[in-house]
């Protein structure tokens, strides 16, 4: 919704009377987080390129609600933009589930080749049926296993109790690796690591840092099992009321903001890695992903067939 009563619908052709809007963009991360830095860049670019005609206010720290709530608000047109993780989007367009599958991307380069290609863009535009429109992908790194016990190779995961997010894919992934999946709320992971209820969990590096889990879990194996991007989303109701010119400005600003966001992400990831290493966390890089892929092929076979088209496109995007 536009928060500006005086704004009028744009009248065709009259350049002097272009509509003014104040939009709202919700993000659940704090103000200095890379996604919010990206959001702000996007807002700044739109503001610049419309000479202040379109203002976008960024609401960080989940002020307007959690991920699920904000997504519904975007669908209703109550707020105009949000930045959310791609994973919950699978509930709206199940083709997004392909991104949740393990070891489908070999590298960051592979991921971005796919996301910025035709198939990646199609995932975004296909959200229109659910009354929203994807504008761009943001970086969220990769997820890796960490544990209080040593994790030097794939064999070490065997028998360990690992916390995962509650989803069938994740549970089957852990089964395939011989570990035991223990779903529990994120907030309880720290004390569960302390008391030994679980041995480890999995996440990206900045989250391992900010959650303080590294104080207990001193071993991380960089298997990059998932690379799930973030998405900058717009309400279709808002999109539909824009003039073609404004649509183009907004889309372009979103695309252009990605560079800033990726830089901010890379910087944060480096800082986290440095801090974790200083705190004595042992990093093991996985040089050869093949054994991991082979061990978890059953998961890909079980879930992949529903998203074969997307998976084929991912294969083709391999650099």
């Amino acid at each position, binding site marked *: *919704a*536009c*928060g*500006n*009563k*005086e704004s009028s619908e744009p009248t065709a052709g009259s350049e002097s009377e272009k509509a003014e809007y104040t939009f*709202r963009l919700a993000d659940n991360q704090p103000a200095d987080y890379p996604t919010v830095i990206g959001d702000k860049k996007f807002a700044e670019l739109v503001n610049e390129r419309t000479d202040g005609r379109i203002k976008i*206010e960024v*609401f960080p720290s*989940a*002020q*307007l*609600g*959690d991920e*699920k*709530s904000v997504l*519904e*608000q975007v669908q*209703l*047109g*109550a*707020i105009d933009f949000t930045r959310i993780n791609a994973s919950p989007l699978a509930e709206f367009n199940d083709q997004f589930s392909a991104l949740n599958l393990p070891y489908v991307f070999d590298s960051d380069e592979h991921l971005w080749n796919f996301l910025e290609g035709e198939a990646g863009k199609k995932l975004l535009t296909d959200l229109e049926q659910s009354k929203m429109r994807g504008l761009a992908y943001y970086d969220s790194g990769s997820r890796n296993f960490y544990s209080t016990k040593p994790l030097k190779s794939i064999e070490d995961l065997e028998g360990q109790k690992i916390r995962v997010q509650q989803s069938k894919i994740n549970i089957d992934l852990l089964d395939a690796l011989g570990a035991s999946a223990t779903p529990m*709320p994120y*907030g*309880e992971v720290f*004390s*569960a690591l*302390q*008391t030994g209820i679980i041995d480890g969990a999995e996440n990206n590096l900045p989250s391992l840092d900010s959650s303080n889990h590294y104080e207990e879990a001193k071993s991380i194996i960089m298997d990059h099992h998932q690379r799930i991007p973030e998405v900058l989303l717009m309400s279709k*109701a808002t999109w539909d009321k824009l003039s073609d010119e404004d649509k183009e400005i907004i889309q372009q600003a979103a695309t252009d903001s990605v560079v800033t966001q990726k830089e901010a992400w890379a910087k944060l990831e480096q800082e986290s890695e440095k801090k974790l290493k200083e705190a004595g966390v042992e990093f093991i890089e996985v040089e050869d992903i093949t054994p991991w892929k082979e061990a978890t092929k059953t998961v890909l076979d079980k879930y992949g067939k529903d998203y074969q088209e997307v998976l084929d496109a991912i294969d083709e995007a391999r650099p």
Partner: protein
Amino acid sequence: MDTNTIAIIILISSFILLILLRFPIALTLIISSLVTVIYLGVPWAVIGQQMTQGMNSFSLLAIPFFILTGQIMSEGGLAHRIVNLARLLVGRVRGGLAMVNSVASLFFGNISGSAVADVSSVGSVMIPMMKKQGYEADYSVGVTIASAIQGVVVPPSHNLVLYSLAAGGVSIASLFMAGIVPGVIMLIALMTTAYIIARKRGYQKAEPVPKAEIGSVLLHGILSLSPAVIILGGILSGWFTATESGALACLYSFILAFGIYRDAPLRSLGKILIRTLRTVSMVFFLIAASAAFGWILAYLQVPAMVTDLFLSVSDNPLVILLIINILLLLLGAPMDMAPMILIMTPILLPVVTSFGMDPVHFGIVLILNAGIGLITPPVGTVLFVGCAIGKVSIQQGTKAMLPFFYALLIVLLIITYIPEVVMWLPNMLAK
């Protein structure tokens, strides 16, 4: 004036108008949010969506579980066993039954978080007993209602869960730890006040518990306390979430009350469930409505404005905290516990965190304030119920409550200005 400012004026003035016209508070929150949303041209549906979202939380479930446990405990005869235990422990002090009352209230601890349930379960055992022993009715009521307030701060307390939700997920375990020391200070303050008055009025010690009964009083007292121990132990050890502990405590107190003690027939379960439903109804409607109201406040960036306003008055945290305490005490006079927590947390929390106050510390300060509001007229549910049970007028009850009210104010100042009192235990937990 810009659209935002007009919207804020519409929101606040419609809220005040409807409150004055005795519209239900939750309904008032919804109507004023709706009117504002319509003015802004935001789709109406967002209010309904926020209401549903407000209730879509696993931790929220701890609230009906705590309330249900409390109801089973008082209906199933656990409450009077706790009173017996307290009698054994502190009955032999001068004005003994007043002490028993305070300790029993602390023990019963208002798991339900509804101080009303606390005052009616402990009060309906204690007030008649005190009157029979020659205590004046007004004094009995004063002690009872002031003691019931301990329960809102002392864990387990559903109000702390409510605050945790309103504050966006502050750790329930930390809040529970934080409530322990202030609870003990409250107990000392209340018992001291009760003792001074008891001396002045010449009240006697309670009858000793017969030697032969000591064993069974101890055993059953401790057993009756154990639902609270399950909840507390489960949460503080990190074994269970608040919700899980609540469910276990429900089941456990059910088995204890209906399987072992059988003071009440099984069919009274229907009554217990309906009573729980009644309390939950009120609290849940407020939670749902506050979610919508809180959303529109955030949408209009009101919390940030309030923070700026406070900081423009003073940049001294001690002064701001004093203003906040006075504000909360004034609001507590007409407002009930749950709306106070749900409405004021999103507005005031950003103010206090701006100068580095811990959300856990603020939670305890806010809840003690709201708790004191429960015994102050014109709207003091605990005061009303206490007066009804003790058969005294509201005026008499208020007068008798005053010395305890002052004692609680002193406790409030201590926990506001000496953060260590509140934060010492949770900080230990964190290490």
